């Protein structure tokens, strides 16, 4: 077996679709010793992962649902209180505000940033000499730690010495207090989120653009279609699957915004930038209300599940 072909990776078969699993051979009573050994080896290979994922993901998820119906402060045993946590959180104006803040943040950092990303991707796909440099520049914020880069933005937003106010005043606009001003705090946080998230959206769009059949554009050119026309009648429809994918991963990311809130505003001023994740954090690790935190995280999960199912259905129906 030393003569293994080094290039069989490019198999001609269709790419794996992810979800299908081949059935076990039937007639389990007739398996050979070699087959038995293989099955045992399979089990040995997967056991560490099953234990790890079971202990650190599956059990915690189930525990979250259980805890959400309890009152639990770590020191005393959990106390079953039915739906009290859920009822209380929707009567809590701060949590309700955190839901609206999260939705508002998501609106600007997902659909709006996606629109910017698709334009950047199309411009980057024009065969320019510098395109590698541009692509790297747009993507670098994505690979750097949110906490670290939020520190830089904290300095840029500094009302007294910050770069942003200096830039605005140099063109005759008034400076703002940004992160400490209730009007400007959320837009400032959104700016950071959108800035950091453009890279990944752009990258997926570039990959999708490279898969569009060139002959479509050639045919359109022969018919005398303009660039704008080609963009809307060829590019946009062909990008639909990529759009769905970008939308889902971006929504999931946006709903879990936490690090930049922690660094930039601590949820303030006057809860103007608190998010659902931030309320989970506060309930659990500042107030030690584990049951309430669990209930809030269930609501967060429900939102994500809902958005995912709706958008999946919307994409399917049109096809």
């Amino acid at each position, binding site marked *: *077996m030393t003569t*293994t*072909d080094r290039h*069989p*990776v490019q198999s001609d078969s269709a*790419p*794996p*679709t*992810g*979800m299908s699993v081949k059935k076990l051979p039937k007639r389990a009573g007739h398996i050979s010793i070699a087959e038995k050994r*293989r099955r045992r*080896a399979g*089990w040995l290979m*997967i056991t560490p*992962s099953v234990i790890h*994922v079971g202990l*650190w*993901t599956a059990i*915690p*998820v189930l525990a*979250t649902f259980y*805890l959400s119906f309890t009152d639990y402060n*770590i020191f005393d045993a959990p106390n079953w209180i039915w739906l009290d946590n859920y009822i209380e959180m929707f009567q809590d104006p701060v949590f309700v505000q955190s839901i609206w803040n999260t939705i508002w943040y998501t609106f600007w950092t997902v659909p709006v940033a996606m629109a910017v990303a698709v334009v950047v991707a199309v411009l980057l*796909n*024009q*065969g*320019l000499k510098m395109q590698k440099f*541009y692509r790297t520049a*747009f993507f*670098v*914020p994505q*690979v*750097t*730690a*949110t*906490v*670290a*880069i939020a520190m830089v933005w904290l300095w840029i937003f500094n009302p007294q*010495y910050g*770069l942003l106010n*200096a830039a605005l005043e140099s063109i005759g606009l008034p400076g703002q207090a940004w992160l400490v001003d209730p009007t400007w705090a959320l837009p400032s946080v959104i700016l950071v989120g959108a*800035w950091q*998230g453009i890279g*990944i959206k752009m990258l997926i*769009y570039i*990959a999708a653009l490279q*898969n*569009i059949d060139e002959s479509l554009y050639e045919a359109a050119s022969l018919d005398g279609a303009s660039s704008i026309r080609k963009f809307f009648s060829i590019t946009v429809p062909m990008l639909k699957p990529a759009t*769905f994918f970008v939308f*889902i*991963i*971006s929504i999931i990311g946006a709903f*879990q915004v936490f690090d930049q809130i922690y660094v930039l505003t601590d949820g303030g001023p006057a809860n103007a930038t608190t998010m*659902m994740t931030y309320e*989970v954090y506060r309930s*659990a690790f500042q107030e030690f209300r584990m049951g309430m935190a669990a209930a809030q995280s269930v609501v*967060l*999960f429900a939102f*994500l*599940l809902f958005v995912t199912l709706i958008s999946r259905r919307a994409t399917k129906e049109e096809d």
Partner: protein
Amino acid sequence: MTVNTVRAAAIASPATRKGPKRWYHHATGRQAALINVLLTIGAVTMLVPFVWMVLTSLKSPAELAQFPPTVLPQEWMFSNYAATLDAAPFGTYFRNSLIIASTHTIITIALGSLAGYALARVYFRGREAIFLAFVAMLMIPTYTKIVPQFLLVKFMPLFGGNDIFGQGGIGWLNSWWALIIPGGLSASAIFLFRQFYLSLPKDLEEAARLDGLGEFRIYAQIYTPLIKPAIATVGLLTFQDSWNNFLWPLLVTTSADLRVIQVGLAVFQQLDNTQWQYLMAGTTMATVPMVLLFIFAQKYFIQGFTNAGIK
């Protein structure tokens, strides 16, 4: 970990299939110039914070108190970096982050590839159920498991003064265990490895089995060498995710000896929030390794990110 992916959708999506590079339209002349101007403005916007971070880290406190700020430092204070290391144990933080990210990467590659191989290429009872369970786990947001994860760590039996029922002590809190074990593996890494092993042809394993090779040798000697680029991709994404992780280390550690660099930055900022030159020097130390890693291994990062949306 902050990985939250819909990798199933990712891999099924045509967006991720690699095709030949086809530049369907070459912009020329005035049009190209206009596009270059637009993209340059965009690229500068993306890079300004990084440049500002480095420039700030090299200025003196007196210069930082000027408004409007100077662009280039009047005096290049490279000594700020040494002073930063004296002001807070950033060296320790850096080392801790490096140890944790490397360990996570090694564990993920070792266990994730074994599990991915088993799911892709070995038939055994219960495989479909396990696979579907892993796929379901991909959908779980970090925040829907973080409270019980914290409780598991706190009540870990027989550790940190705990008795067999997990009572009486602090369990894994403030220990390397808490930093390394829970984040050591993710369902998404297993899923990605499975996809890579599935894409390999079947005749190799059939020939190997005829030769009497055991399953572990087929995994180690035949299939795994063929997915080296995939290992690089998953490894880099894991390293990056771990290096950038903030919430989990924040929750499970309080001692400065175990602090990772992201938490160290936040603590430094809260304690010393006027020394911007030191804070920016620390931030530079926290970001430069990832930026360099990205620039040198861009191919693998891009492959990984287009296959698996992260963050």
